[in-house]
């Protein structure tokens, strides 16, 4: 498979995040919220770790990432530029992959300023480095997964708001399934399945510093599924 088209589209998408104010607003809001979550516990317990920040990341990302991806295909369909994109010599997969890589790179840019938290933690104490590295790896995987889901939601509609709501809902459900109070309500036979399907368990085991290939496989499969679904929807609904 040729990836040149994807890389060009990725660069273009990454740039166009910064053409509009949305990117700056999303980054600012994300930093304010995550800064609050971080410092909230930082001074309280005298622990040098980033738990507060990573703990809630699946929920913060459930809102912020679909907001970034909502326009990716919905806007193209709304304005008609989708017809131009699909008559350039790129396959649908290349286009989807390009937008996905662009969104994932943006998540990386969004996370970069939070390294400041890690540095401040390292200055005042001697944190365990494993959970921090694991946390960022998990955060990137989680961000990429939600970006793929958000893109999938964006392929169904011309309306960005609908894409946002569907995307947020899907990411939220995947997160909620894994919470303990949710699991208590489930029939015990289903708990194992639901727990496997949920992002929370996989994310938190990576975030604790335990990088298990099964968790990575889980994230990669959700990404692959969502991207393949996007290609299918875009090819079927013209």
């Amino acid at each position, binding site marked *: 498979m040729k990836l040149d088209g994807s890389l060009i589209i990725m660069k*273009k998408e990454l740039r166009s995040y910064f053409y509009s104010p949305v990117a700056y607003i999303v980054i600012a809001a994300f930093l304010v919220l995550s800064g609050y979550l971080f410092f909230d516990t930082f001074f309280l317990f005298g622990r040098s770790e980033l738990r507060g920040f990573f703990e809630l990341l699946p929920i913060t990302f459930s809102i912020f990432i679909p907001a970034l991806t909502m326009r990716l295909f919905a806007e193209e369909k709304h304005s*008609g530029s989708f*017809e131009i994109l699909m*008559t350039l*010599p*790129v*396959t649908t997969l290349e286009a989807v992959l390009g937008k996905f890589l662009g969104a994932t790179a943006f998540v990386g840019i969004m996370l970069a300023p939070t390294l400041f938290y890690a540095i401040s933690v390292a200055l005042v104490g001697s944190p365990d480095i494993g959970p921090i590295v694991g946390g960022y790896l998990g955060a990137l995987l989680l961000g990429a997964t939600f970006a793929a889901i958000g893109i999938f939601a964006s392929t169904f509609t011309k309306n960005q708001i609908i894409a946002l709501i569907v995307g947020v809902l899907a990411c939220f459900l995947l997160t909620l399934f894994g919470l303990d109070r949710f699991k208590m309500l489930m029939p015990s036979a289903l708990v194992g399945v639901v727990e496997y399907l949920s992002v929370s368990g996989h994310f938190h085991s990576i975030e604790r510093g335990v990088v298990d290939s099964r968790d990575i496989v889980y994230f990669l499969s959700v990404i692959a599924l969502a991207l393949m679904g996007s290609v299918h929807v875009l090819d079927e609904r*013209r």
Partner: protein
Amino acid sequence: MITVNNLTKRFGDLVAVNDISFAIRKGEITGLLGPNGAGKTTTLRMLTCYLAPDAGSVVVGDYLASMNPIEVRRIIGYLPESAPLYADMIVYDYLWYVGQIREIPAETLPTRIREIANVCGLAEVMHKNIGDLSKGYKQRVGLAHAMIHDPEILILDEPTSGLDPNQIVEIRNVIKEIGKRKTVILSTHILSEVEATCDRVIIIDRGKIAADSTTRELTEGGDTGNSVTLRVSGVEFGTLADAIRRLDGVSDIREAVDREGLTAANVLTGTASDVRPSIFRLIADKGWTLYEMKQEQQTLENIFRKLTRGGEHEA
């Protein structure tokens, strides 16, 4: 260059394109003409591999569109209707992006962008947002986008719609200039556009081909003939029609409405014969009074109306 065989596309119950076949030769400007909703855009979308046909085949160059859509897209430059470009990009960045996707090497791309900007008259807007441009400029950016890789085939959907008369002339000149070297297909519902720019015209109506010939053949063709408008008094239309039908060279006569209460008629004739002298003599012999007689060559407009059934479904 392009061969289309038995192409069909349905949207639910609506048959948008119904079993059409045509061939487009290299180096011609072909106009796809038809009323709104005739199936022009759908046809072009199938040529450019945006839509997959329900039946039939499209061959572009050496490639079968259903087998090699990417190769087909490579040799085609396509501008969809109303140029839906990324509004938040700067013209230069946009052309750069398309140039990269079109695999123009990075060393030659700046030169190529400058060239195409000159051809399309974009020099002074290169660093403006596409969304801030006027419709005319946007259309020109669209043309530049479609031509940046110097494609063998250029497909333009309603390239002049929404432009003012000066811009229309400019865009037509650009198209004619390109048409000297390339194969161009454009769709339009404006007849004068076809007469002004196209070598060849394919008239589409309700998803079917109503006519396919050179523009000249269609306007001067033997079977189109002339039309004589006649206004007479002192005779009922029935009597007049019977008498005129008997004259040599008359192919048909139709009643027309007249505001002054005279008997009015349109006499259709072959191109070869001029029936005006015999009509005059007939009227004089019978003692009727002739108010007006005017002969017109059937224009593309008349032919179009006739072929697309009088535009009855246009409203």
